[in-house]
């Protein structure tokens, strides 16, 4: 919140949100409110089952809240036609299974769908946008490959390229670097940071990796038991006391000398 880049207007916000999974006995969220401002890089953290993925799906408008409202640039997201919503918000999901042998370029072109007419074919500018997104993700030589021929890192980059091809103002990512090795984690977060800085892309990413989230996010939102347990710059959110309370883990919090970000060293579960 103290970050000067986070001074934009709220672009995506939830108001009094409640949510219960179909058939679940208890609500996951009860009266949750949160606002993401234009140009922010928000890391959503929290223990398993705290609702990170569900919050992302609700923000994306792909899940319906049981109560409350999600607003995109002040408008109720339900009132926005799906293709228009898809031109503003792109989502990278955890589940990456794509049926049938679509090539990497075809997958990137899928991101152009919200920009086409109901029955339109891709135009030259759509091919250009898809290729630019693939170049951004360092996949230029991989256009004709099928998804299963790629490494996990390349596969994830192909799906991020699809999101970038949408030319959205906001990208929502669910654990974008789960299953990736050290190099590819840093690579994907560096690209996101660059897009955030250079193009003002608003990024909301969930993560289990507190240190990665702290290093790249300008703001962290800590979810716990359906509430926002803490919200603010990484060093105000990641404290020894909060980690003990929310993650039930004894930890030391130090400061990374090179990046200045807080650094969590877990010691033992409580």
């Amino acid at each position: 919140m103290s970050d000067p880049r986070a001074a934009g207007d709220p672009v995506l916000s939830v108001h009094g949100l409640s949510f219960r999974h179909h058939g679940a006995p208890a609500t996951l969220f009860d009266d949750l409110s949160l606002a993401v401002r234009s140009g922010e890089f928000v890391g959503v953290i929290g223990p398993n089952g705290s609702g990170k993925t569900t919050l992302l799906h609700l923000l994306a408008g792909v899940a319906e809240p049981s109560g409350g409202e999600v607003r995109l640039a002040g408008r109720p997201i339900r009132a926005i036609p799906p293709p228009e919503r898809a031109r503003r918000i792109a989502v990278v999901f955890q589940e990456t299974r794509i049926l049938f042998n679509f090539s990497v370029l075809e997958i990137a072109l899928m991101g152009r769908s919200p920009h086409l007419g109901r029955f339109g074919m891709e135009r030259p500018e759509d091919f250009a946008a898809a290729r630019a997104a693939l170049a951004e993700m360092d996949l230029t030589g991989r256009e004709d490959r099928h998804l299963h021929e790629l490494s996990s890192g390349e596969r994830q980059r192909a799906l991020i390229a699809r999101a970038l091809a949408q030319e959205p103002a906001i990208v929502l990512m669910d654990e974008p670097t789960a299953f990736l090795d050290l190099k590819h984690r840093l690579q994907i977060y560096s690209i996101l940071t660059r897009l955030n800085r250079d193009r003002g892309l608003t990024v909301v990413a969930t993560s289990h990796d507190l240190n990665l989230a702290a290093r790249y996010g300008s703001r962290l939102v800590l979810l716990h038991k359906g509430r926002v347990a803490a919200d603010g710059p990484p060093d105000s959110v990641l404290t020894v006391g909060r980690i003990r309370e929310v993650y039930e883990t004894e930890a030391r919090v130090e400061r990374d000398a090179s990046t200045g970000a807080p650094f969590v060293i877990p010691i033992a579960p409580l």
Partner: protein
Amino acid sequence: MPPLTSRRLWVALGLLSAGFAASVAVCASIGSSHHTILELFRQSTDNDTAAATILRIRLPRILMAALAGAALGAAGTVFQAVLRNPLADPYILGVSGGAALGAFLATAAGLPALVPFLPVREAAAFLGAAATVGSLFLLSSAGGRLLSYPMLLIGVIMNTVYLSVILLIETVVDFTRLHGVRLWMIGSIPIEGYGLIGGLSVLLVLGVVGLSLSGRDLNLMSAGEDAARSLGVTVERTRLVTVLLASLVTAAVVSVAGPIGFVGLIVPHAARLVFGPDHRLLVPASALTGAIFLMVADTAARTVMAPTEIPVGVITALCGGPFFLWLYRRQRGGAYFE
């Protein structure tokens, strides 16, 4: 394969249409009497018999086979995409089982003999299929949403239950009375009047065009339901419309030709190998490929062991089984059957 462009779409469909026309001409020239389609355009003494053989016997059957193949090919492609399952075929949701039960019930009750001038068995089969799809929609929706996994599960269960009821009918009803419907159940192409063929053609063309227009949504749904939603697809509406249209064209041809197996499973896979995975081309291409395949299979059915006729369902299964195994071996390790 490069991504689909308008040019590739129309070139592929043009070539397939030419292949379709050529297949009609060749199949119409093969049969136990040696008349070829060329005789229709020549002045010869034998002209009338040639015309009678080709126009009244061969051509209606060929066109009926083409219609059935087209419907099964297009519907199979759509079911595989909507249910996100490469093993899906047009019968997986119980359309064929429902049609068969309808046909057996009507026949066992002796209805076709009561009103011999009406297509009672066909009507009963269609009603059975329609009732099945209707109850499937009711049973597999929750909170106004049509769920694909329950749909698959319920469809498979309904098919099994239907089969048991049919076996029960076979046990208790006089054997000779069921002979016709039993033949229908194996799947064979009847010679129908041009009125019925025309009506089915209109239904089928509208159905395939409607399904092809949903092609881009089907592509996005192959990437996952949430992904499709995030890309602007109204998943529930697309699923409802496509399953309904695909079931309708399937029910229409099954009522007439019986549940011919394997066409709706292998034609989509074969077409995908040749034309790629983009459903805007794949749906109409599967329709044309299915039409050509079933036309050729049916011509083989009536000529290979002439004068004995092999049920066309036997031929499609004999071609389809090995092809599918080959495809599986070829694609092993790929994302195809993950």
